[in-house]
């Protein structure tokens, strides 16, 4: 295809996306607060079928009976759920800053350190009227994606689109892993979720490329209540990347996302996250509250799921990506790096629920605390009576930088099957002065030395990340810990 034609096609594609939003943009924003009316409004705006509205309403009335959980080791002022907008159309490009000069210099500094090209910086920062040819690279990637994916029958689209185009699939699986009544934040999400990703990998298909929200260009503004559903049909395989190492502009403080993964016989999902939401300033003012429910159901035999997360952002992180190992021989893995600095608080970990025979799980969790932050690993390993011959290996390592931070490990282990094997190892260490001096004697600055040592500490997790993510994630580790020593 001639380059010109290709360009025209891409421009059209982007225009279509914009156009798709226009109807939304022109509509009003729902008033503040949460009630049945708002939920009906959201559902109507999205032209949803009745069953989905019913489901949202059931979730809402259940949510009213629930209490916000307080067992996590995080503290924050009470959230006024009536003092928030639950539906605002995607921001029009005209609301964006005029140019990068209007962006917080600190954010620009981070972009620079991450080595993000100028045009991509503009997109991330939401600069208005960024010319299409300026973001040509990412657009062209998106286009190539679409073509290659549709050839294989892979569905990758916003979940609101999937509700319309593939209602049977959505109806069959939505809420099947995280039911609407699951927990306070997931229930809230079920009632008011605005958008998110939908992925279906057909039987026997090895998804030809890594799926990334970064390149799903219409993924921006999915808002604070994101809902993602990924189904890997029998014998299929997919790697999904969520998030982005660069801090995204976001004005919503409360985030409550839900991610559901369904893995059938012999299928395999690798789900990688880099979370870098605004953590608040060095005095602990501002920052995102991130309450996420992520769960994978290995329904089939030999199903496999692997969660890898690098969590450096948010003022509060409350997140426990879990695996329900139902199919015999199914495998669940959880690799996590959680970095907290200044006044950040992270309570994160995983749940491995072994139901089927010979299921196995592995947990590698690395927590790094600096400044006055608190980091908690909270995990559950549960062997059910039928989990004959199942095994788990857990390793939790904490690294402390400075004297005012805290690291906590709260492992819950429950075995109801005598043949099951569970191993748990935990360590806590500090960056030693002699390590820092050794690096500095070799010409490495103190900040670079901290980044180097911490990256070494996280290596087992970092090497699970897809290549293109890993390099940026390593830089991000250094950036997150800036100012933590000296």
């Amino acid at each position, binding site marked *: 295809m001639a380059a010109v034609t290709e360009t025209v096609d891409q421009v059209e594609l982007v225009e279509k996306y914009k156009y798709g939003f226009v109807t939304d943009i022109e509509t009003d924003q729902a008033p503040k607060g949460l009630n049945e009316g708002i939920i009906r409004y959201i559902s109507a705006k999205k032209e949803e079928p009745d069953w989905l509205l019913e489901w949202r309403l059931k979730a809402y009335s259940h949510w009213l009976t629930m209490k916000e959980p307080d067992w996590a080791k995080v503290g924050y002022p009470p959230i006024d759920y009536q003092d928030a907008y639950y539906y605002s159309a995607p921001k029009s490009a005209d609301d964006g800053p005029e140019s990068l000069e209007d962006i917080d210099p600190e954010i620009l500094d981070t972009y620079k350190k991450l080595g993000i090209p100028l045009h991509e910086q503009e997109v991330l920062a939401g600069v208005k009227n960024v010319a299409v040819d300026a973001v040509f690279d990412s657009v062209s990637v998106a286009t190539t994606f679409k073509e290659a994916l549709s050839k294989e029958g892979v569905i990758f689209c916003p979940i609101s689109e999937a509700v319309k185009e593939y209602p049977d699939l959505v109806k069959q699986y939505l809420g099947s892993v995280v039911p609407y009544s699951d927990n306070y934040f997931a229930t809230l999400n079920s009632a008011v979720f605005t958008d998110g990703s939908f992925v279906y990998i057909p039987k026997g298909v090895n998804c030809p490329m890594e799926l990334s929200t970064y390149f799903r260009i219409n993924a921006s503004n999915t808002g604070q209540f994101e809902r993602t559903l990924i189904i890997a049909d029998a014998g299929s395989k997919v790697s999904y990347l969520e998030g982005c190492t660069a801090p995204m502009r976001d004005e919503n403080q409360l985030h409550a996302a839900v991610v559901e993964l369904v893995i059938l016989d012999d299928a395999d999902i690798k789900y990688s996250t880099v979370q870098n939401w605004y953590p608040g300033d060095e005095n602990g003012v501002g920052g995102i509250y991130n309450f996420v429910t992520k769960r994978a159901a290995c329904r089939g035999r030999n199903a496999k799921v692997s969660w890898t997360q690098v969590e450096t952002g948010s003022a509060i992180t409350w997140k426990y990506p879990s695996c329900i190992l139902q199919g015999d021989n199914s495998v669940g893995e959880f690799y996590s790096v959680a970095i907290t600095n200044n006044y950040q608080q992270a309570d994160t970990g995983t749940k491995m629920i072994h139901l089927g025979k010979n299921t196995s799980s592995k947990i590698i969790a690395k927590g790094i605390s600096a400044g006055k932050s608190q980091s908690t690993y909270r995990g559950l390993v549960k062997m059910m009576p039928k989990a004959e011959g199942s095994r788990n290996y857990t390793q939790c390592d904490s690294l402390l930088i400075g004297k005012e931070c805290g690291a906590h490990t709260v492992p819950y282990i429950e075995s109801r099957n005598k043949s099951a094997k569970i191993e748990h190892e935990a360590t806590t260490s500090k960056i030693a002065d002699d*390590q820092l001096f050794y690096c*500095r004697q070799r010409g490495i600055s103190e900040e*670079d030395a901290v980044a180097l*040592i911490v990256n*070494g500490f996280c290596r087992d997790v970092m090497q699970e990340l897809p290549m293109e993510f890993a390099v940026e994630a390593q830089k991000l580790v250094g950036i997150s810990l800036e100012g933590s020593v000296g």
Partner: protein
Amino acid sequence: MKLMLEIKNLHAKVGEIEILKGLNLTIGSGEVHAIMGPNGAGKSTLSYVLAGREGYEVTSGSVLYQGKNLLDMEPEQRAGEGVFLAFQYPVEIPGVSTMNFLKASVNSVRKYRGESEFDAMDFLKFVRQQTKILNIGDDMLKRAVNVGFSGGEKKRAEVLQMAVLEPTLAILDETDSGLDVDALRIVGEGVTALKSSERSMLVITHYQRLLDYIVPDVVHVLADGKIVDTGDKNLAIELEKNGYANYAEVAA
């Protein structure tokens, strides 16, 4: 002759205890000086003070390095200026491959010196020029810095770092400790290969045996925080025979 290092009346303490008590030492460009002395004389303290380790407080005296006030500089600046310390006890950094560490180190120093940084391929070539003589294989470069290294491997890795950082003043703090005869020969030959008219060395050791390989121009005896005797290489041989008993009295 150009002066490399000029230490005058150096006093330093660790905590409340004074360790260096008026040390004077002058090293010319391209010279190899050995410092010998009994345990507790202040040999390692001298090396840490020169490298700028925290907790080693200079209370008086001066140190000029290539005419600049060394004591004013941060440790990484000193490294950039060409001061290298081969550690007596090299430090482990779990999870960081030796290759990665070398690259971070060399590129930091090159950046400081206004030279271009190496990319991964060029760096590999550059390092391989040095690994042969030290009998260091690629597998060792892949292992985490000093983690699980034998005594000999640790010291060879120190000399490799010295080779790639191309210092102008190399301080070797008991680089011979914990080495068997073969390892001593490899390390000794490795260091000797790095001798040049532009590079000075300060070799701190208990024993004469390392000096069979790295032949010193000047030998000093350090006792109780001061240089108490200075001679040529024969002084080291004498010390090996007679020990430090005489100097203990001098110092007292």
